[in-house]
């Protein structure tokens, strides 16, 4: 390419195989100094793999990595970091038992003589966090932090390294809107300082907002590259390879009777006085900021946390002390944390799929043939795309993990489904599929709760929305009332709507 300036980092014709499966085909990407480059594509398109190759975590099986126009072979990510190339991973890469400051300076501790210069490290960490508007103390233990705070620590760590090239794999997936704004400000700042930035996100609005150029991947191939002046819709179509309009299916008013009635549910330290009704055929949205107690309330409801309160299922009062009790009355909860709580990453798809419903698959012994059939069905119905059938679930792309998790939950054949963050980290084509599946569940007469921090999702899916703030329900919205402004006002504590 006839660029006047050489790219600080570029890929040429990069291939990558995992065993017999080729996941990248001749990828070419150029990052330029002072430019934000977005890499977008469906789940499993190969974005993370591409990024890992750029930053020395994986070696290409073909093609080359160019740094300042010269071919480099990084033996590991330390060599890449030494060359000023830093990556923030899709999954957190923090030492949980250590403090924030220890993590920020991990492997590059400042010294004064033989001793650690703790004071300077603490000051620098505080400074970095300040720039990110993040209010965690540098001495806090990482394992005690919330997900967004962890993400901020990751970013602080990258800022500390003063990278020439910063590669960010879905940095905003777990952040709230306000936090995303702070992050994007930092990205602007780094760009102005001449850093070359590559980032990926499934929220195309962000891409539109911050990127200068876009590369679109599909099935491991570059299908589009150009300036970021295309519309979100055009990006979505390029990613998916078909037209993605009508993200949300049409809503239908619930007609069924009350399936679940919750009265004065208390989950100590997290949620108080949560009362609501849920009808068959209804999609009830739970909106609120991260940390507003929605997840904890739901976990309490299905017996994953100690709780008090009255719960009625189909008009009968029930006691739920464990997820098994919940399952017995037909209620299941799909966690927001698919890697930590949803799936066994070192096991195959079959073991994961049937884990929750294993009693249905076993008499004296487990009927593996029936399991295989269930897996066939799940792959077909939920469009799970795996490189090979016996892949470890940890090696599936995020979106396909989510679909498998959904399949696992539905295999238990629940009547009441609680889905926490149904589409976190999921591409737009898959989102559309998942929304359609949720709608179908409701149309089949199931009662569905969707907990989501993505406001558009709540608005697009739910027929009724409850907004939580600081562990309490602060408002209910229905029909035409459901809009961004009202939800926002409620979740920020700016007023109450009639319940």
């Amino acid at each position: 390419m006839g660029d006047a300036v050489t790219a600080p980092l570029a890929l040429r014709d990069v291939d990558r195989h995992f065993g017999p499966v080729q996941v990248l085909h001749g990828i070419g990407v150029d990052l330029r100094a002072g430019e934000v480059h977005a890499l977008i594509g469906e789940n499993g398109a190969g974005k993370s793999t591409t990024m890992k190759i750029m930053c020395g975590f994986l070696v290409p099986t073909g093609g080359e990595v160019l740094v300042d126009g010269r071919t480099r072979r990084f033996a590991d990510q330390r060599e890449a970091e030494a060359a000023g190339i830093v990556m923030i991973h899709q999954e957190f890469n923090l030492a949980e038992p250590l403090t924030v400051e220890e993590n920020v300076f991990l492997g590059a501790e400042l010294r004064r003589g033989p001793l650690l210069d703790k004071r300077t490290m603490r000051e620098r960490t505080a400074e970095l966090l300040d720039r990110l508007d993040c209010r965690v103390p540098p001495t806090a233990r990482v394992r005690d932090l919330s997900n967004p705070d962890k993400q901020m620590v990751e970013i602080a760590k990258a800022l500390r390294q003063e990278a020439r090239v910063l590669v960010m794999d879905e940095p905003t997936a777990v952040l709230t809107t306000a936090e995303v704004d702070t992050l994007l400000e930092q990205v602007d700042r780094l760009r102005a300082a001449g850093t070359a930035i590559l980032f990926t996100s499934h929220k195309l609005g962000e891409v539109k907002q911050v990127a200068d150029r876009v590369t679109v991947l599909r099935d491991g191939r570059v299908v589009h590259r150009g300036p970021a002046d295309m519309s979100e819709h055009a990006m979505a179509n390029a990613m998916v390879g078909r037209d993605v309009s009508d993200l949300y299916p049409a809503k239908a008013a619930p007609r069924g009777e009350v399936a679940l009635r919750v009265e004065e549910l208390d989950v100590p330290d997290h949620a108080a006085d949560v009362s609501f009704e849920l009808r068959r055929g209804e999609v009830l949205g739970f909106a609120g900021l991260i940390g507003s107690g929605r997840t904890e309330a739901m976990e309490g409801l299905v017996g994953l946390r100690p709780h008090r309160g009255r719960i009625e299922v189909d008009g009968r009062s029930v006691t739920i002390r464990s997820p098994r009790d919940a399952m017995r009355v037909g209620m299941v909860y799909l966690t927001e944390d698919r890697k930590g709580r949803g799936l066994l990453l070192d096991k195959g798809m079959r073991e994961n799929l049937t884990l929750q419903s294993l009693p249905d698959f076993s008499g004296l012994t487990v009927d593996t043939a029936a399991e295989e059939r269930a897996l066939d069905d799940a792959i077909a119905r939920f469009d799970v795309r795996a490189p090979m059938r016996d892949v470890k679930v940890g090696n599936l792309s995020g979106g396909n993990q989510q679909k498998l998790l959904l399949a696992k939950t539905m295999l238990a054949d629940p009547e009441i489904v609680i889905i926490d963050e149904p589409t976190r980290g999921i591409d737009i084509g898959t989102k559309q599929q998942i929304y359609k599946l949720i709608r179908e569940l409701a149309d089949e007469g199931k009662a569905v709760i969707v907990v989501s921090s993505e406001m558009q999702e709540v608005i697009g899916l739910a027929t009724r929305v409850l907004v939580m703030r600081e562990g309490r329900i602060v408002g209910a919205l229905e029909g035409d009332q459901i809009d961004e402004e009202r939800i926002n006002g409620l979740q920020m504590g700016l007023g109450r709507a009639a319940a």
Partner: protein
Amino acid sequence: MTGAAATAPQRRDRSHSLLDLHVLGPILALAALILLGTGISATNESTFLSASNISNVLSRSAFIGIIAVGMTFVITAGGLDLSVGSMAAFIAGLVILTMNSLAGTVESVPMLVLVGMGAALSAGLAAGAINGFLVTNMRIEAFIVTLGTMGIYRSLVTWLADGGTLSLDFTLRTAIRPIYFGGFGWLTWPIIVFAFVAVLGELVMRRTAFGRYCAAIGSNEQVARYSSVNVNRVRMATYVLLGLLVGVATILYVPRLGSASPTTGVLWELEAIAAVIIGGTVLKGGFGRVWGTVIGVLILSLIGNILNLTDAVSPYLNGAIQGVIIILAVVLQREKKAGT
């Protein structure tokens, strides 16, 4: 769509071929040991391959073997039990005391033997349940709990024996000798029971929901909990099963010497854990295989046996060689991961 290749997952993955060192490693090691033993015995006319030697080796490895099968479940579910050796000694002591004290009142010897067996099994069950209770309900680290109970049982048997040896009444001792030495020719009862426990264990681990749950809990306890698995109950069951199998092992052990002392069962826990690890079960849980454990047990006992056949290496080095094998086994496990 262009994703045809990606949407149609293939049935088989290459890494699952039989050439996988992780699967083949323990088998190869065992084969090598057998060849070595045969070679040595050919040069010095000892009796490695004779039925009596084989029967002897297998019978003696049965105690550790039966315990190690139970240990496989505990470790697979992310636990550990250091108390099994002391537990065996304590149960042996209890059985001997029970039978001795009833010997005056109960006339029929078979009846006495049954009572002794019952005592062994219920003591094992109770001891396992105590470990399980402390680990699950009291939420204490398995290492700490079983380190504690290990000391307690060891001390109890020393106290029961008053520092010396507890011996079974002479008549009883002769009466129950066949439980260890008898059987069908070289196929002694310990071998039969070991084989039975091993086959059953392999089936349970591989084919039942219980085995699946053990691996799931060891792999990620949170995921298991969120998937409606009764984590505490499964955990508890692994310790109870292990306790029960310690009871079974003790039933076979007592007839061998007819006595128990403070040195009975010393280091059994480590041998059992070593056998489990050599067999390819992952120490931190999540994956276990009983057949591997059986091979691990055989490897450990063959090393001792072969060293006894030859003067080339001192039998005192037995422990050193076992140690090297354990470390090698773990290195092989790691290589399997890095190779993906």
